């Protein structure tokens, strides 16, 4: 993506590279630097495709680019660009539903059909939504990068809002897949931005909520926090959530919404806050921690 500036082309090239790898590595064994091999192969496929399609616009300076030689590249040369990808998917110039779909597609690894089902829209609608969003990234020149310092705070808020939106869509067992995808993106974010209290706070919030998923519904009825069967709580998620919270504490001295809301509510084992009992999703999401 960083090399090509074109989401769709990058995606297709990556798919080609994986297909080739699956076949070739099975036959000839794995190369020493697997990631580098995949990236080099993908770039070459993309260059081949561009040349074949003869789209000779000024943007495609890549036509001059020499083909990558596999041996020259090492894994260390290729940075993990997931952070750039997340910020690109959640760029404010894209509509919210496009940001959600792109994030799930690019980072969550869900396919178009799964995303469509999770949001109760026809697959064709979701496919079009994704295509339009990717075209906009290319045509309007949405940059593939981590936003510069003066834009970063607002952009990070937007990213976290999308992740939380996805998590809430999956809440209450409507789509455990969405909830776990949101957590997966949250984990990636926490790896990539380990000093951001809001990132850790959101991860903690999602883990602590999700830990109680099994206990939340009984016979189709919502169960209040105080009445939940605690043996159904996922201990490892609770531990992970608390760990994220603890990591964020030193950085959270300046406050921050997700982190504060997580900290204010005591750990699930000894709940002090009582949920109101209202069935609205929003209240359950906030009260339940």
């Amino acid at each position: 993506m960083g090399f090509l500036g074109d989401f769709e082309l990058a995606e297709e090239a990556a798919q080609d590279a994986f297909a080739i790898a699956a076949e070739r590595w099975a036959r000839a064994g794995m190369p020493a630097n697997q990631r580098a091999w995949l990236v080099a192969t993908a770039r070459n496929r993309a260059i081949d495709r561009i040349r074949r399609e003869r789209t000779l616009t000024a943007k495609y300076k890549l036509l001059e680019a020499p083909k990558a030689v596999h041996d020259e590249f090492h894994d260390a040369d290729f940075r993990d660009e997931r952070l750039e990808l997340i910020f690109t998917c959640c760029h404010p110039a894209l509509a919210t539903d496009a940001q959600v779909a792109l994030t799930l597609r690019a980072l969550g690894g869900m396919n178009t059909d799964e995303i469509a089902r999770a949001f109760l829209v026809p697959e064709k609608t979701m496919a079009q939504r994704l295509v339009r969003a990717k075209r906009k990234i290319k045509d309007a020149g949405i940059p593939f990068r981590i936003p510069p310092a003066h834009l970063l705070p607002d952009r990070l808020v937007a990213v976290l809002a999308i992740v939380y939106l996805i998590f809430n869509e999956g809440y209450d067992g409507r789509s455990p897949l969405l909830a776990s995808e949101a957590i997966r993106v949250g984990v990636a974010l926490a790896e990539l931005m380990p000093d951001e209290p809001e990132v850790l706070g959101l991860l903690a919030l999602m883990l602590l909520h999700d830990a109680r998923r099994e206990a939340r519904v009984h016979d189709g009825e919502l169960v209040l926090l105080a009445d939940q069967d605690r043996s159904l709580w996922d201990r490892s998620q609770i531990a992970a959530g608390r760990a994220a919270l603890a990591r964020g504490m030193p950085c959270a001295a300046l406050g921050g919404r997700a982190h504060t809301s997580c900290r204010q509510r005591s750990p699930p084992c000894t709940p002090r806050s009582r949920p109101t009992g209202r069935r609205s999703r929003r209240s359950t999401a906030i009260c339940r921690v």
Partner: protein
Amino acid sequence: MQYLLQIYSEGDTQFDNLSADQRAAVTGEYMAISESPQVTGGAQLQPAATATTVRVQDGRTLTTDGPFAETKEALGGYYLIEADDLDAAIELAARVPAARLGGAVEVRPLVER
């Protein structure tokens, strides 16, 4: 990349409500933007009431009094700019006074030929 910045405002009401000094300052801002190196063209348009809309049907030229779309917000001016990416274009658009005086700026990339 090249972008067209189309400047929309609701008549001139917010602008008119400013003091003479403030209006002069706003005009100065527009001029300063035109003088940025990124800006390759631009102009202020006369009010929508001065517009004429042209269509051709069966070889005949049809004209209508007024702008293409009769909306509350009217196109008041434009800038043609060069920018590395959308973020840079947005940053420039945000400097346009109309954006903070109740109007809006549409940022649209040109087709590159």
